[in-house]
């Protein structure tokens, strides 16, 4: 994106003003630095990733390696993909496979990789008024909540978590509604606080719940796959570069450098080592002896199918 700005400056004939942006390249004095030095990479990602602090922990390594800065913008999954679709970011990290696939099918994203995963958990008050503790199936637990009309707090903000919640209701064959079902339109932290104050159930990603557990009285009632819960509560994160064929101003080189770095064994170890309140938040899955080919393309795509 810096390159773009510099080109524009030149174009309007005030190149000298650009001394602050990417000066190391203009001067060419810093020969040890890679050519991308001084540029910045715009990453749009989801609030649940950003709010755990993981990116702040691991990014300095990448920034130092290339002499660049990463501008991480936390948005909802929908907004993060929309920014990328408009060409306002270079790389996008989200957790909603269906939306990611649509993004790729429409040609906006390329070179998708599975990055890491954690899981969702169903949390609620310790008193557990609907009695869902120990239920092995997430859909069954939701059905029980709906039948008991026990209060349930929904994010209601088209985030990845909200999308997952709606998918779960659909899988349970329930169209939630009524006084017991509240859409808050807020972030995960706020939703947890609201659920806490109202003694309600909610669906949370494990990372946010762990980071807030000390301040609230909610407890995990249905575990996700990390703690041997149902697979349906898995929460996989993917990363994609914005297609330079669609947006020629996208900083594709640096985006690919970033994807290469974050899927490297070193960065994957750093993700694995990241802890909050003594618990691991994310489980890397980019490095594998036996890569899953489906991570590169929309799910279910094959060269035989008439996908176009």
């Amino acid at each position, binding site marked *: 994106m810096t390159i773009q700005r510099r080109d524009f400056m030149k174009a309007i004939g005030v190149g000298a003003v650009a001394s602050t942006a990417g000066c190391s390249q203009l001067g060419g004095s810093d020969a040890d630095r890679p050519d991308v030095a001084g540029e910045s990479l715009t990453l749009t990602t989801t609030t649940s990733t950003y709010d755990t602090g993981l990116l702040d922990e691991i990014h300095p390594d990448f920034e130092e390696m290339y002499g660049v*800065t990463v501008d991480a913008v936390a*948005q909802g999954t929908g907004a993060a993909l929309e*920014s990328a679709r*408009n060409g306002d970011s270079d790389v996008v990290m989200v957790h909603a496979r269906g939306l990611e696939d649509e993004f790729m099918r429409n040609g906006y994203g390329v070179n998708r990789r599975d990055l890491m995963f954690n899981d969702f958990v169903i949390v609620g008050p310790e008193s557990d008024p609907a009695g869902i503790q120990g239920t092995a199936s997430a859909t069954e637990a939701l059905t029980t909540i709906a039948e008991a009309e026990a209060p349930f707090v929904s994010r209601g903000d088209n985030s990845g978590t909200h999308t997952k919640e709606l998918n779960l209701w659909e899988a349970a064959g329930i169209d939630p509604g009524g006084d017991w079902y509240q859409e808050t339109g807020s972030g995960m*932290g706020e939703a947890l*606080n609201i659920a806490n104050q109202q003694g309600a159930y909610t669906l949370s990603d494990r990372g946010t719940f762990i980071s807030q557990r000390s*301040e609230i009285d909610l407890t995990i009632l249905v575990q996700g796959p990390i703690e041997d819960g149902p697979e349906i509560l898995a929460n996989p994160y993917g990363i994609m570069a914005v297609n330079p064929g669609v947006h020629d101003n996208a900083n594709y080189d640096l985006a690919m450098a970033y994807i290469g770095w974050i899927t490297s064994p070193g960065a994957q170890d750093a993700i694995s080592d990241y802890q909050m309140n003594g618990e691991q938040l994310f489980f890397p899955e980019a490095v594998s002896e036996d890569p899953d080919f489906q991570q590169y393309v929309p799910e279910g795509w094959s060269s035989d199918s008439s996908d176009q």
Partner: protein
Amino acid sequence: MPLEPIALLPAVVDLPFREGYVSSTIYVSLYVSVTAVTLSTLFSVPVAIVLGFTDFPGKQLVKSIINTGMGFPSVVVGLLVLFTVSNQGPLGPLDLIFTTEAMIMSQFVLATPPITAISLAAITGVSENVRDAARVLGGTRLDVALVVIKEARYGIATAVLAGFGRAISEVGSVLIVGGNITSAEGISKTRTLTTAIQLEARQGQYETAMVLGAILVALVLVVNAIVVRFGDTEAVNR
């Protein structure tokens, strides 16, 4: 969220903020809002003078647009600026999305209506006799305008403060066009106090959000005091 004042004190001493986080956030807040309000004042006061001194067809329409603009929701302004500066928008090639420049643009749009409207009220409140006096003593149109600005300076200062208050306290537009970015080391790039508060609240960190809120209120108070003092000094020395 109950919060004992005593419980707040250790929170202030032992904040979970990284070094440079709060100061850089304050800097970005002030840089964006002060720049936006300065530009807005340079634009609004001449507009108010023209509106106050001259009659032209459509003047009432302009006034009602300004009055409507005072109540314009900041998120709507944020969306409009986003469409303008986004890669697909008319200013896309300037690459302004997620920069302080884009935030300045949206705060300019937000601050201009109140600054213009309050300045206009102050300027039309200046006695016509004083305008005549400036003219008859040999003043040019510009001299008359300067006299009116000086006479209306308290009202204009109020206008600037109202605009500044609106700019520095709004969260909707700067969040959308700025992206609430910090570096990995916690140095703000486009994070303001308001978006930082929004972030803390989103994470349920209400205590740190309140500390940032207190800093924001203190900042507004300091700026108010400076502007009021500046106005007084002007009056003494004129």
